[in-house]
């Protein structure tokens, strides 16, 4: 491929950001000098440079962080270094909400205006920002620093709503989560979040996945070991790869990322694949509105994830693993990076893991603001340096996944379950929960409850019990509805609180547990407005590949807008149902297939808009 580059050069800071990640350029064509002339800038990239295509997103993020936006000069330089055509790279960069292709001020506040934060004052926060910085996206001088603010979908901090993410570009880029962000604004930089992950049930007996959260020092491998860490890896090595998979199959563990696929079957399929290498991907993209459980594990017990991934790699024959972490989780990133480095230093990752003769290493890949990248094949495209568009299935990831190789993709919570399964055996694990949904489940309880947070309960507890654990409806008000499973889930009524929270219980009631979201709305909530927010979310987050979802999400939002504005044409409800059916049946991936679920459930189950349309 002849690469035609632009006639623009990077600034010193841009070059430094790219070289900081890729190392200094080695030869003329990859960035030392450029040949110019009649043919324009033509660089001939070798195989080696092209093989680094997967560094494209990390490089773009590095530039964004350092400079605040991605200029033509910076993009061009990245393209030159990686042998990626500029149009192609532009297509990738423009896919991600956290990357800007137009100048942005160095200080940017991303304010969550999603469901849970709307229950806890995000409206007032946005009003305050408008007051201080002007309308969304406008550049304002604020205390001597050029600043702007943008609305953001759920930031995964719903238990500390309202949330904001503050980014400050520069040679030493800063990222701070402000949660709760109320009143935090006058000092902007000052108000970072509590560095210690806390869960409401902390210290209670019976906790399994949350056992160590808030009790163990997340920065200390020794403390992790003192709390039982790395016993499971030892046990796994005694069991051998097949033994681990046998226990996993017996445990009947189902994936916690939303699709509830049997983990043992997935691992077995990859372990049996003759093609090499195998890859392991931990899905830590956690962007389903209302979901924050994976963050709490990663911040409170990061070594547990590293150990669990090591066991997964051992069982399925993966030499390399990735944690695909959503871009808005700076704290989790810092702690995981530290945990990985510590584990490597102490021989828990690397060539000959604690003398057991197997090799495994792992790295973090950051997302850049795209919910769709949590879809199990979009995540591969994103890691490989392409637009995060889902792939058509089949082929399935166990056959052709990351870089076209057999790949295990699992959610953070799924993986952490493996530790206890290995330690106590699959059949003992299967005693917990219900017959079909074994083990415990993390629920992300937020909205109008007294004590929002992550709660761990055995499968089969009821929705009512869940809400009671969280102290019931805030201020003793009455419950209007619960959003179960997230924006991709559905609503249930206050008279359905005896719903058993298990996969089969949810299925029987035609709802889904999804990623474990339990978002409570009290009687003051304007539900139609919440539906508009959900519709806007899917419209924004659709990758745009397929017609049903790309246009269907827009038509759905428009029909809702007419109903909300009282200017309907009388056919809105039918239209929503018909578009919804096409999205469910004909979309490529789960995003389009579930995008109308919550809205249709609010109409059908709650009777929102009854008598209209």
């Amino acid at each position, binding site marked *: 491929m002849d690469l035609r580059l632009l006639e623009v050069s990077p600034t010193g800071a841009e070059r430094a950001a790219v070289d900081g990640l890729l190392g200094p350029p080695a030869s003329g064509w990859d960035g030392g000098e450029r040949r110019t002339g009649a043919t324009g800038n033509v660089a001939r990239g070798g195989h080696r440079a092209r093989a680094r295509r997967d560094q494209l997103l990390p490089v773009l993020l590095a530039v964004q962080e350092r400079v605040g936006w991605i200029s033509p000069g910076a993009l061009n330089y990245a393209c030159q270094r990686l042998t990626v055509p500029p*149009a192609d790279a532009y297509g990738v960069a423009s896919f991600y*909400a956290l990357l800007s292709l137009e100048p942005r001020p160095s200080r940017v506040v991303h304010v969550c205006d999603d469901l849970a934060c709307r229950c806890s004052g995000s409206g007032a926060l946005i009003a305050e920002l408008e007051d201080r910085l002007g309308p969304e996206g406008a550049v304002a001088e604020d205390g001597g620093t050029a600043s702007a603010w943008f609305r953001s979908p759920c930031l995964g901090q719903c238990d500390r709503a309202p949330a904001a993410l503050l980014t400050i570009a520069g040679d030493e880029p800063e990222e701070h989560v402000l949660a709760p962000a109320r009143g935090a604004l006058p000092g902007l930089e000052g108000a970072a979040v509590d560095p210690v992950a806390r869960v409401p049930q902390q210290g209670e007996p019976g906790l399994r996945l949350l056992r160590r959260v808030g009790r163990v020092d997340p920065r200390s491998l020794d403390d992790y070991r003192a709390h039982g860490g790395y016993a499971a890896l030892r046990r796994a090595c005694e069991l051998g790869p097949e033994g681990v998979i046998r226990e996993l199959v017996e445990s009947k563990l189902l994936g916690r990322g939303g699709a509830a696929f049997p983990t043992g079957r997935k691992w077995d399929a990859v372990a049996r694949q003759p093609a090499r290498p195998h890859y392991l991907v931990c899905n830590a993209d956690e962007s389903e509105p209302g979901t924050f459980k994976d963050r709490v594990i990663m911040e409170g017990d990061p070594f547990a994830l590293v150990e669990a991934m090591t066991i997964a790699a051992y069982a399925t024959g993966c030499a390399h693993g990735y944690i695909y972490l959503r871009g808005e989780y700076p704290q989790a990133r810092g702690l995981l990076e530290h945990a990985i480095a510590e584990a490597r230093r102490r021989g828990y990752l690397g060539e000959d893991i604690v003398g057991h003769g197997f090799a495994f290493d792992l790295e973090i890949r950051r997302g850049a603001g795209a919910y769709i990248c949590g879809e199990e094949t979009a995540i591969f495209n994103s890691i490989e340096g392409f637009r995060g568009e889902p792939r058509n299935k089949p082929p399935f990831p166990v056959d052709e996944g990351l870089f076209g190789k057999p790949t295990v993709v699992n959610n953070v919570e799924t993986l952490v379950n493996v530790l206890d399964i290995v330690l106590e055996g699959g059949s003992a694990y299967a005693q917990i929960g219900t017959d079909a949904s074994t083990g415990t489940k993390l629920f992300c309880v937020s909205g109008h409850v007294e004590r929002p947070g992550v709660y761990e309960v055995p499968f089969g507890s009821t929705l009512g019990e869940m809400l009671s654990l969280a102290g019931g409806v805030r201020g003793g008000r009455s419950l209007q509805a619960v959003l179960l499973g997230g924006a991709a889930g559905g609503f249930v009524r206050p008279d359905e609180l005896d719903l058993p929270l298990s996969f089969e219980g949810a299925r029987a009631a035609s709802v889904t547990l999804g990623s474990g979201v339990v978002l409570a709305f009290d009687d003051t909530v304007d539900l139609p407005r919440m539906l508009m927010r959900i519709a806007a979310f899917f419209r924004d987050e659709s990758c745009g*590949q397929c017609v*049903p979802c790309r246009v269907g999400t827009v038509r759905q*939002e428009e029909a809702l*807008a007419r109903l909300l504005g009282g200017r309907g044409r009388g056919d809105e409800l039918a239209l929503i149902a018909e578009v919804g059916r096409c999205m469910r049946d*004909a979309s490529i991936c789960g995003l389009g297939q579930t995008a109308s679920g919550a809205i249709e459930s609010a109409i059908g189950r709650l009777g929102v808009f009854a008598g209209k349309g």
Partner: protein
Amino acid sequence: MGEMQHLTARRMVDLEIDGEPVRVLEGSTILDACRGLGIDTPTLCYGETLRPANVCRVCVVELEGARVLAPACSRKVEPGMKVRTDSERVRHSRKLVLELLSSSVDLSTTPAAAGYLERYGAEPERHGPPAPADPGRDRRRAGHHEEPDGQTAATAASPIKIDNELYVRDYSKCILCYKCVDVCGEQHQNTFAIAVAGRGFDARISTEYVAPLPESACVYCGNCIAVCPTGALMFTSEHELRAEGVWDEARQERTDTICPYCGVGCNLTLHVQDNRIVKVTSPDDHDITRGNLCVKGRFGVQHVNARGR
């Protein structure tokens, strides 16, 4: 020899389409099998010379036992598959896909569109009057949009791009089939002048930073024009004749010839109207070119006569 043949011979697969038993080569798609039976399947993003992008979803069929519909153009046949191509479920999704497209994109120069819309009873008007062109569409940010009031139906409409002498780009007509990007990129041309940019409804075909074509990597091979199913990419000659209201395919003569410019010997089909070459194509089924040409073959002959105008 016999053994070789045995190893490479593909097996036959038996399946059932609309109740009829069919036997096709392993590796065939459901679309291939449907064609064998004479079942007419609508397609928009499918291209004979490209790998299926399977994004438009107008070709979806129902598979017994499957949760969702499958794209006929890319799904491979499997033994025992039971396919329905005209069930109520299939008709519903095809109808809605056509409605959604037609309400958001100008399909007036998509030859197949009118027939499909009629066949499936699509009613694009019910989604509202189309919103006007947005000059800012190319710069929309991923993950943000203005809240609609629902009184108009959002469209892909944006100002037409006329930035070179050879062809125009009217993305108001673009259904985002990915064909131009695939043909310009790794599947044929290896130029990578264009890509899909943006996300969701704001996704669009773009050069880097929306650069005009003359500043981009484009080499004017015109292969993207050849694969574009909608007329979003159009020869300037055709665009101008259409604007004058005198474009008339019925009056056009097609002459097959060999490109005079180099030794490769690509087949050219000259489309001539009123003694003017108005368009140059190349047959899809040609072994070497597979519908593709270079700038000389595609535009050279035309240019000669344009200068003579």
